[in-house]
């Protein structure tokens, strides 16, 4: 009945560079998603729903908004007496040190030393999915793996450092290619790794002492021959955010109720910080379809195929289609919005027409008045 034996580590800044607009003011972990969430909510909720009760969040920069969001961790039931949530800001001030996963992990060795857990799971924040980590743990143990690497099957995202893997019939990884983007479908890593804590610390120290600082290259690839590295295929509805386009697509996918229900499975809820807002209010001329609408919205216009975050106002005769409108934004009368992503507190003035394209949505920076 005790909590499971796994220590969770979250990298809140990994892949910041793929969403330059959204991460200009926040780390990847606090990028808004699905109307009221931040990306880190998915990782933290997956951890907590799987019984992980000690979580360290590695931060590099821009993390004020993340600290505000996470607070004491109470929203994820991680405000614990002996365990719970730990912010792990860089101990040293040098920017370079934090470039790599290995350097970040080496920096928090005392955290590993003090933890009683036997296993460690490492997770990035650019993945939105409802993942039962206990299944990964079970498969890790039953397969006799030393390291388990979670992956998705499909076309690899346009990331420069993809981890592309080939597995045998038992899902043991037999070959790895880094960075290369093959033409067809493949299994690609999603920055989620499970292994024994002591094995990891040992490998980290060995690598760092040789100045080998790339986790995928200097630990996985180098040890492919001598340790058992296992692949775990994640369920279908797990979105990898690798560009504004894929961010847009992952949000829009939620307008399919099957996807929505699999991400927000009531048996494994996604937790987030509570903000007090009144329920959404629909006016006399409101016409809304195929959309997600958060609390606090006031809608008098037309909304179609869109996601509205908290406290968004859509005035009369405004038309919002195929768009994501973040918290506090105001869409004035007679505007037309199509294929657009509006960051927080944007104002679109009356009569404006804004339109991006399906594969290249228009992004509007936080606080802009257009």
């Amino acid at each position: 009945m005790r909590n499971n034996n796994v220590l969770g580590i979250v990298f809140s800044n990994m892949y910041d560079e793929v969403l330059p607009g959204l991460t200009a003011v926040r780390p990847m972990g606090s990028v808004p998603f699905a109307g009221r969430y931040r990306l880190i909510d998915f990782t933290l909720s997956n951890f907590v729903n799987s019984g992980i009760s000690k979580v360290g969040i590695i931060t590099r920069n821009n993390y004020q908004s993340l600290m505000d969001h996470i607070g004491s961790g109470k929203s994820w039931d991680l405000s614990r007496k002996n365990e719970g949530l730990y912010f792990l800001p860089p101990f040293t001030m040098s920017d370079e040190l934090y470039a790599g996963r290995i350097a970040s992990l080496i920096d928090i060795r005392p955290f590993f030393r003090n933890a009683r857990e036997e296993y460690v799971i490492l997770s990035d924040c650019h993945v939105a999915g409802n993942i039962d980590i206990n299944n990964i743990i079970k498969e890790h143990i039953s397969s006799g793996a030393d390291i388990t690497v979670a992956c998705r099957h499909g076309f690899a995202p346009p990331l420069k450092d993809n981890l592309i893997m080939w597995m045998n019939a038992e899902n043991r990884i037999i070959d790895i290619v880094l960075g290369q983007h093959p033409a067809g479908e493949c299994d690609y890593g999603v920055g989620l790794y499970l292994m024994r804590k002591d094995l990891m610390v040992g490998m980290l120290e060995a690598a760092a002492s040789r100045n080998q600082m790339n986790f995928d290259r200097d630990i996985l690839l180098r040890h492919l021959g001598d340790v058992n590295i296992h692949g775990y295929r994640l369920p279908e509805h797990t979105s990898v955010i690798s560009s504004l386009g894929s961010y847009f697509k992952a949000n829009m996918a939620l307008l399919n109720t099957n996807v929505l229900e699999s991400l927000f499975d009531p048996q494994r809820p996604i937790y987030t910080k509570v903000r007090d807002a009144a329920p959404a209010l629909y006016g006399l001329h409101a016409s809304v379809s195929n959309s997600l609408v958060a609390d606090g919205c006031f809608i008098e216009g037309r909304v179609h195929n869109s996601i509205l975050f908290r406290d968004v106002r859509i005035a009369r005769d405004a038309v919002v289609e195929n768009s994501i409108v973040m918290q506090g934004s105001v869409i004035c009368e007679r505007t037309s919005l199509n294929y657009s992503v509006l960051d927080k507190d944007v104002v679109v003035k009356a009569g404006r027409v804004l339109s991006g394209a399906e594969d290249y949505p228009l992004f509007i920076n936080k606080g802009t008045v257009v």
Partner: protein
Amino acid sequence: MFRKQECVAMLLAGGQGSRLYALTRNLAKPAVPYGGKYRIIDFPLSNCINSGIETVGVLTQYQPLVLNDYIGSGQPWDLDRMEAGVHVLPPYQRSRGGDWYKGTANAIYQNIAFIERYDPEYVLVLSGDHIYKMDYSKMIEEHKRNKADCTIAVIEVEMSEASRFGILNTKPDGMIYEFDEKPARPKSNLASMGIYVFSWDKLRHYLNQDEENPQSQNDFGRDVLPAMLNKGERMFSYRFSGYWKDVGTIDSLWEANMDLLNPKIPLDLSETDWKIYSRNPGLPPHYLGATAEVQNSMICEGSKIHGKVDFSVLFSGVTVSQGAEVRDSILMPGAKILPGARVNYAIVAENAVIGTDAVVGSRPEESPNLDEWGIAVIAAGINVGSGSVVPSKSMVESDI
């Protein structure tokens, strides 16, 4: 251990709310859902913290399980404090037996020890029956200014309605000289709101005295306040103007919800400088499907709407299926309206299911006899079978 507090609030939350019938079968009245994401008790609790009152005793007695869990540590209202904060106070046994709370005054009397540990100057007595936003600190300021022993909040009602209320007759300076309970010929239109500020020393004296009186029903309105007035204590009215609504009956609960959809009615839950806090169910944003038609309505998190919704208040986790129609109604958390069902002028309580093509309630204009027309109520967890018809004004407490 406990530090002095200038004012302690005591919230009477023990009432059965029997005029809400089916809605309070397993629920204390202050826990009744209201306004899409609130419960009635959110209003006095939020008013307290917004007024700077950080110590609140909640007196429970009837069906407190839901209420206790809802209040929990008090965190949603910022009332989870080290020494102050919100405390649930049920009746309990002492070495010489125990008593249920006999009346509103007795409930406070039994908790004198709780109040005393904060050594307060003032005690604010509240009830969990009304929807309103009020800055109690202003009332306390006026109580101090008047050097009053007791201050009673009043609201002007229509003179024609005054005989339905407890009316206070006051001198021009606000001093009360008479209580007039539901007067046939009211002399004033100042109705008591059931919100009292007492100087604690005085109140304690009168509570002790009231307890010794075997004739007393141990009620504030009936016993303690008249006793104070008889003895010539300084009792003042405090005028409140603004939205204030008793939600003690099915009709008034329905109306108070509908008021939220009326932009002319001055109760704005989205105001940021006097927020009403509530415990959040933690669900994703609501989803409106391709066939949804929603107008003039309030919709909350986690709901899924594929049908038609007009002039209605929908709580969290509600489902309205394709082809279903909901008008002038309240759907409480988790209610499910299956395809083709029609819901008119109804309250559908938590997790009730209205089956395919069922009809619940009717519109007044369709009613041959308006006296027999009224709001239909489906109790929590009830299943209304497909094709069933629930006439207006019915109260459904078992599956049909």
